[in-house]
C-alpha cells in the first residue's frame, strides 16, 4: 500500500506526468463563483438594511442570524469548496464547532447569575450609598 501511495503522490505533484493533478485540485467553472459573490453582496446589503430601518426585537435577531448563517454557509460550501470535499473531512471540520454551544450555555448561565447579583448589590436602591461597580455606570 505504501508503494501505491508513493506513486500516487508522485503523480499528483507532476501535473505533466498524469491527469491526476486536475482530479485532485478544486477546478470549477467561474460562473458559480460570480453567482455566490453576487449573493453575498445581496445578503450583506439585506443585513445592513435590518439596522438601517431600525427593525427591533425578535424579528431583528432572527433576520440577523438567518442572513449570517446563509452567508457563512455560502462561503464555506462554495468559496472554501466544502461542497466538493469528501464527507470524512466535512464532518471532521464542521461537527466539532457544535461543542461551542455548550460554552454558550455555560456563558449564558454565568451571565444571568452575574446580572442578578449586580442588580441585588449594586442596583438602583443601593446606587445612592454604594460606589458604582463600573465608572461609566455613574455617567449614564
Amino acid at each position, binding site marked *: *500500500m505504501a*508503494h*501505491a*501511495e508513493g*506513486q*500516487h503522490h508522485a*503523480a499528483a*505533484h507532476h*501535473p505533466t506526468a498524469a491527469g491526476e493533478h486536475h*482530479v*485532485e*485540485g*478544486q477546478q*470549477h467553472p*467561474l460562473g458559480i*463563483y*460570480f453567482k455566490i*459573490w453576487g449573493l*453575498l453582496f445581496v445578503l*450583506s446589503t439585506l443585513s*445592513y438594511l*435590518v*439596522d*438601517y430601518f*431600525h427593525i427591533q426585537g425578535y424579528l*431583528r435577531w432572527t433576520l*440577523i*442570524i438567518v442572513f*449570517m448563517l446563509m452567508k*457563512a454557509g455560502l*462561503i*464555506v460550501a462554495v*468559496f472554501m469548496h466544502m461542497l466538493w470535499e*469528501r*464527507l*470524512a*473531512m466535512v*464532518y*471532521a*471540520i464542521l461537527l466539532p*464547532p457544535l461543542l*461551542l454551544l455548550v*460554552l*454558550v450555555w455555560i*456563558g*449564558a448561565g454565568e*451571565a*444571568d447569575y*452575574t*446580572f442578578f447579583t*449586580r442588580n441585588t448589590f*449594586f*442596583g438602583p436602591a443601593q446606587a445612592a450609598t454604594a460606589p458604582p*461597580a*463600573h*465608572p*461609566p*455606570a455613574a*455617567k*449614564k
Partner: protein
Amino acid sequence: MTQSAATGTGEALPLAPGLEGVVADWSSDQRAFKKVPWGKAMMWIFLLSDTFIFSSFLISYMTVRMGTTAPWPNPSEVFALTIGGQSIPLILIAIMTFVLISSSGTMVLAVNYGYRKDRVRTVIYLLLTAVLGATFVGMQAFEWTKLIMEGVRPWANPFGAAQFGSSFFMITGFHGTHVSIGVIFLIIVAIKVIRGDLDNEKPGFMTGRKGNYEIVETMGLYWHFVDLVWVFIFAFFYLW
C-alpha cells in the same frame, strides 16, 4: 503488498461514497482525508482551532454583555459617520464588509487561475486581494482612531457599559491581526507565483516539499476564513 503491486497507479480501491465512505476513510489505515493535499487538510485543522479562539471571544462578549447592568452602547450610533452633513448609521462597517467580501471574490479567482497555470492572472488577483485586505485594515485603523479620540478605552467609554471597549478592541483587534498576516502571506504567495517557483516545483522556506499551485488554494482557505469570521463579528457585535 500483492495488491499494491497489482494496482500501481493511484488509489488502490475505489472510494466509497456517503456515510459508508466516512467510516471507510477513517478506518482505512492510510491518510484519513482522501483527495485532499496534505497542506490543505492541515490548514483546515488550523482553521478549526482558530474557530474555537474566535468563538471564545464572541462567547465572552455575549457573557459580559448579558451580565452588565449598564446600558450597552448602540453600535448603530457609535459607528455612524457624518457624510455630507448627514449621519449615516454603521456606514463604515458596511463598507468594510463589502471590501472584505470583494477580496474573497478575487481570492477564488486567483485559486481558479492558479490551477489553470495562468501565472499573470493569478498574481493580479492575489495582489488585488492583498490591496483590498490592506484597505480593510486601513479602515479598521481609522475606526480605532475615531473611537479612541472619542474616549473609548478597554476599561471605560462615554457611551455606556464599560465592557463595550474591551470586547471591541479584543475582537476587532484579533481579527485585524489575522487580516494583516493574511495580506503579508498573500504577497509572499504572489511573489512565489510570479517567480515561477510553483511551475518549477521549487521547495519553499521551512520545507523540502515541492512547490505547486495547491498552496494558492490553501492560502485561499485562510483568506475566506478571515471573511467568515467577519460575517459573525458583523452580525453579533455590530448588528445585535
